């Protein structure tokens, strides 16, 4: 029966014309939409980047790693039975690999340079499990057991190097009174909150013979790689049971739980930003409604004329809805750009790689347009219900 009349393209052009004609008033309404869209876009983009970053950071470890710590309860240093731990993969198919390490802190000297550093008695398994890479030399091997070989982290090498005398493979360093020979220097690696220690700043020595430094040749920490589909909670309980020893209480940490914890933290932030975005969009929507209502009042004669020459109430309503949606979409696109810019700023500030999820490019303006339609509904309805005779007489 009745036809929509205006083509969408024409309606949008018309709407943009109106926008230009009432620039200041429109800008005010757009500001709310812009801030709302921008904060939501920024939040989603920053969240996306943070997630990528987390994944990137944990990639060298993998999220299926569980750490078992022996917490000291008495005077004796708390330890885990290394034999028991390293036999785990054979006892439980869901346990893929195990690496043992102890930890102490000693002055480490090379020539005149001296620095207080972490020293970790460990085995070749640690390098494999944590994805360490070498800058020079080799990792620890069974032949080093009981000997005085050391693998140093990239920061250790940097701190102990003097001008003209870099710390290299083959050099000798003094660790707590013993002279170790450097057999490998690590390439720099990311340090995450899940790592038991910052390996860049750690000297690794063979765990067999480690008692000369830390008093025991047993690990205080065991890293366990689980099968990817293993239930981490159940695994943690099993590990505690399997490794339990009198005199030490065991503490189990999983990367997945830590990531979940971080995500929960982030969820609070993103909820806050969402709330800000929603409130801004609401304010912007009310602004759009205001602009549209003023437009309807000012253009009563036009509405009357259009009605006289055959625009149906539906035609008029559609015209004003498209106008409101266009108005809001302009704010939405501006908000998208502002949001991406803000996220870009955050990326530069945190040293992350900038990456926007594709869907926000659509979601931002679409949400704004939706707000426009929702808040344009009342003015559009008002326009469509004007009496043409009175409307033509307006002013």
């Amino acid at each position, binding site marked *: *029966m*009745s*036809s*929509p*009349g*205006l*083509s969408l393209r*024409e309606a949008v052009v*018309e709407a943009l*014309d*109106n926008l230009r*004609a009432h620039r200041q008033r429109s800008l005010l309404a757009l500001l709310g939409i812009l801030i709302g869209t921008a904060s939501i876009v920024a939040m989603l983009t920053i969240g996306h980047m943070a997630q990528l970053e987390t994944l990137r950071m944990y990639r060298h470890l993998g999220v299926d790693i569980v750490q078992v710590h022996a917490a000291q309860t008495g005077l004796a240093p708390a330890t885990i039975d290394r034999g028991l731990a390293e036999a785990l993969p054979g006892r439980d198919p869901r346990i893929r690999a195990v690496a043992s390490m102890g930890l102490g802190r000693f002055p480490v000297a090379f020539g005149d340079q001296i620095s207080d550093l972490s020293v970790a008695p460990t085995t070749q398994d640690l390098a494999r499990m944590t994805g360490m890479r070498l800058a020079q030399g080799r990792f620890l091997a069974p032949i080093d057991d009981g000997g005085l070989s050391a693998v140093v982290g990239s920061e250790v090498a940097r701190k102990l190097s003097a001008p003209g005398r870099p710390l290299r493979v083959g050099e000798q360093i003094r660790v707590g009174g013993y002279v170790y020979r450097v057999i490998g220097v690590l390439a720099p690696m990311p340090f995450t909150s899940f790592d038991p220690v910052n390996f860049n700043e750690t000297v690794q020595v063979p765990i067999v013979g480690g008692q000369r430094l830390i008093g025991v040749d047993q690990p205080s920490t065991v890293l366990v790689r689980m099968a990817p589909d293993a239930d981490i909670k159940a695994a943690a309980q099993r590990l505690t049971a399997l490794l339990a020893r009198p005199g030490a209480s065991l503490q189990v940490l999983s990367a997945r739980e830590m990531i979940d914890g971080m995500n929960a933290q982030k969820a609070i932030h993103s909820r806050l930003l969402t709330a800000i975005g929603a409130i801004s969009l609401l304010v912007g929507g009310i602004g759009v409604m205001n602009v549209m209502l003023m437009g309807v009042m000012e253009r009563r*004669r*036009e509405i*009357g*004329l*259009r*009605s*006289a*020459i*055959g*625009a*149906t*109430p*539906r*035609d008029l309503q559609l015209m004003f809805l498209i106008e409101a949606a266009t108005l809001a979409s302009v704010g939405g696109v501006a908000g998208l750009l502002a949001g991406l810019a803000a996220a870009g700023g955050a990326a530069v500030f945190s040293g992350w790689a900038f990456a926007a999820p594709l869907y926000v490019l659509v979601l931002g303006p679409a949400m704004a347009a939706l707000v426009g339609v929702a808040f344009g509904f009342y003015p559009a309805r008002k326009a469509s219900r004007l009496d*043409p*005779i009175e409307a*033509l007489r307006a002013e």
Partner: protein
Amino acid sequence: MKGRHDVGQIDLGGYSKSKIPVHILLSSLRLATDRARGDRCGGAWRLMLKLLNVDKHYGPPERPVPVLRNVSFTVQAGDFCAILGPSGSGKSTLMNIIGLLDRPTTGEVVVDGETVDFSTPEITAGLRNRLIGFVFQAFHLLPRLTAWENVALPLLYRRVARPRRREMALAMLDQVGLADRADHRPSELSGGQKQRVALARALVGGPKVVLADEPTGSLDSVTAGEVMALLRDLNRRLGVTIVMVTHDRDLAGLCDRRIEVLDGRILRDTAAA
């Protein structure tokens, strides 16, 4: 049909300076003329408009204020009627009812044999678009649109595509002698030119009746005379039925027929000499 042959005789006068292809001009004119003029041929005048016992009251039903009282009259296709009467006599009210902008309290309106259904605004809007062309005292051109876009406006609500709308609007602008002002905005036109654009807009959809409520009311007497001459000319050339309200007895004298209204009633209905 004999009406078709008439198209060939249309005097394009001095107005066809533009480069509009003749076939477009003619096809658009046919819209305006076929139904109106074609039906007039064969000697018999055809009924275009009929009001039957129309009453219009304003105010609450318990205390009605009568504005039109039992108005009945008919207009033939191709008629050029003037409605005269003192201020407040109900002329505009009558025009609004003929123009399907307002519904009569009682009585019926028949346009081109079709009894108007006033039940919903959707229906009357569609009927207005198809049957009626409006010319207003205040022109009511949209300031942001060019002359041709203003003229093409009624076609917008018929889903006519833009290129075709432009063709038809240009042809109509040519008819009112403004082909060279097609891309001007209303603010760049004189009062007389604005009213001619409005006239082209009223005609572009090929309406059954053109309604003009004091079309010269905003114009000086010279321009008013020009617009009146154009109306007269379009009525003769295109055979459009025109009903016009005016206060000017001289202008009314140029019409075929004068309907005088007083206090909501038709006082006199006379054919011009």
